[in-house]
């Protein structure tokens, strides 16, 4: 195998976004925290923190932007849904996609480029009410590609559900396409459901709306595809493939009686195959992983 090339210091700023979704269907308010990025001191000027912009995608459109000027003395910026929705009309249906970016000037590139090329993370916050219970999950910023970019298809593997009369399980697909064409089928996911014993239980095709959050009810989907409820107690694996646009996928478990939530991000292939960006691995890996079944 050829050695991986040593990473060069980026000359530009690699665009990334932090993606979350509203959870209105579950009666929750969402929020986020992202790190405050402060420009290195240059002479006697005051510390300058990069403004943070939230793009609110509603009905697939970048419908609203909300900017926050962070306090450079604070390590993190925290924003809640009620802040970016102030003055906005309520949505008709579905969930909004929230995409967060750092606004920067060309002179920020030398220090911001390496920072954005490295791992940068935010917290997806969920609460029942401002003074009520809250929870969160830490997850990475994802690359934001220009219109026309050809994405590698998504491979999602979700097997950590909890089935039973007290709980319901959801997959939350957050899909960012940006301003590109939306007639290329890149929002389609093919899902094969397997039992823990390795038997295929059902298949489903999902059209995840572009530039939206999409809450997929696992038990309802399985029932719709003929999987009896009794089969769930043994465990179910959801193997998702397709969806050649930018996705973030979360798993939620909800207590039906109280509405309390458990939330975790998914594990993309690079968690399991650490060198997947290496060209000698990537090509053969995806050829075999995306082969017809």
């Amino acid at each position, binding site marked *: 195998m050829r050695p991986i090339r040593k990473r060069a210091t980026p000359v530009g700023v690699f665009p990334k976004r932090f993606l979350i979704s509203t959870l209105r269907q579950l009666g929750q308010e969402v929020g986020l925290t992202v790190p405050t990025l402060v420009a290195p001191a240059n002479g006697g000027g005051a510390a300058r923190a990069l403004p943070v912009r939230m793009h609110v995608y509603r009905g697939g459109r970048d419908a609203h932007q909300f900017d926050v000027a962070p306090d450079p003395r604070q390590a993190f910026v925290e924003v809640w849904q009620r802040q970016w929705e102030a003055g906005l009309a309520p949505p008709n249906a579905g969930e909004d996609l929230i995409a967060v970016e750092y606004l920067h000037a060309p002179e920020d590139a030398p220090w911001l480029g390496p920072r954005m090329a490295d791992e940068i993370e935010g917290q997806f916050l969920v609460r029942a009410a401002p003074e009520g219970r809250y929870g969160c999950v830490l997850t990475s910023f994802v690359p934001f590609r220009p219109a026309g970019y050809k994405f590698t298809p998504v491979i999602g593997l979700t097997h950590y559900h*909890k089935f039973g009369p007290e709980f319901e399980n959801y997959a939350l697909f957050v899909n960012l396409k940006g301003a590109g064409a939306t007639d290329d089928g890149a929002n389609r996911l093919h899902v094969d459901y397997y039992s823990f014993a390795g038997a295929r239980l059902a298949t489903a095709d999902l059209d995840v709306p572009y530039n939206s959050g999409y809450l997929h009810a696992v038990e309802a989907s399985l029932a719709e595809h003929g999987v009896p409820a009794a089969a769930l107690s043994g465990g179910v694996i959801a193997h998702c493939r397709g969806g050649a646009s930018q996705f973030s996928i979360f798993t939620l478990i909800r207590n039906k009686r109280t509405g309390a939530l458990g939330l975790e991000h998914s594990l993309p292939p690079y968690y399991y195959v650490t060198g997947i960006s290496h060209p000698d691995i990537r090509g053969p890996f995806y050829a075999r992983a995306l082969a017809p079944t």
Partner: protein
Amino acid sequence: MTAATDVRARLGKAWIKAGREIERLTYRAKIARPKLLGPAIRGPLVQLYRADADFTTEVAFVNYLTFYLLDADIGITVTVTAYDRNGKRLGSGRHRVGRKQALQRPLAELVDAPLDSHGLFTVEAAYDAAAIDGIAFLGQTAPQFMTLFVPKADGATAPQILHSHKGFQRSGVPFSPCRWESPVTERLAAVEAYSVFVMNACRSKLGGRVELVDVARPDAAWRTDYHAPAWGVARIDLRPAALGLPLDQPFRFACDFDRRTPHRKPILFRRFADGSITGNHS
């Protein structure tokens, strides 16, 4: 920090860096010679368990190789090992996960031993020897798993899911102080009680301080010392109402460590007035 302490910390960090380089070279050798040296599989990976009045712990693992290499027929044998809060090994179990299979079972069953109220557990993987040639091109792989903290029946809580990709270290870590700060603002008025679990995934004793810091006035904080034995866990329970802090102000958790153990994000559980609990590593 005194000059002597500073030198000690620098030496400690250099030692850690050298150890990482040795580990990297070991993995590279395995990637180059998987038949001779075995496949380059990261591990053991580590996570917290709870087996107390609030939660039991389930471990979920999937045969990722056969969901990625669809034509492959390779089994993964998973070894799960649990330790008590003081780092004493309690038990271990091996489980084969076949093609396109998964397992999700209580940790106590997987390690075939009664658990402590909390502690560490590890997961490591081995692949069927006959199939190693076919997957060697993948280079280094990692046996990722999910941990579910499952509430007791009829409770108000939903299962809390946590992932960890952190390694369990069989050797010690020298003095190398560091600090972690949570990005999450804590609303003390909403929380009845916190349980903070500081994990020590190495063979040295770990000490330090957990703090609850006023976001607006960082000098105003509540602090407590902790000590975690090698491969052990320190648990800090606190009730915000009893701390004498202004409950209407935003706070954040922070934690000081006297050495750079592999897992430096304490696991935080919050109990609310309705009885529900949320947990996360932040």
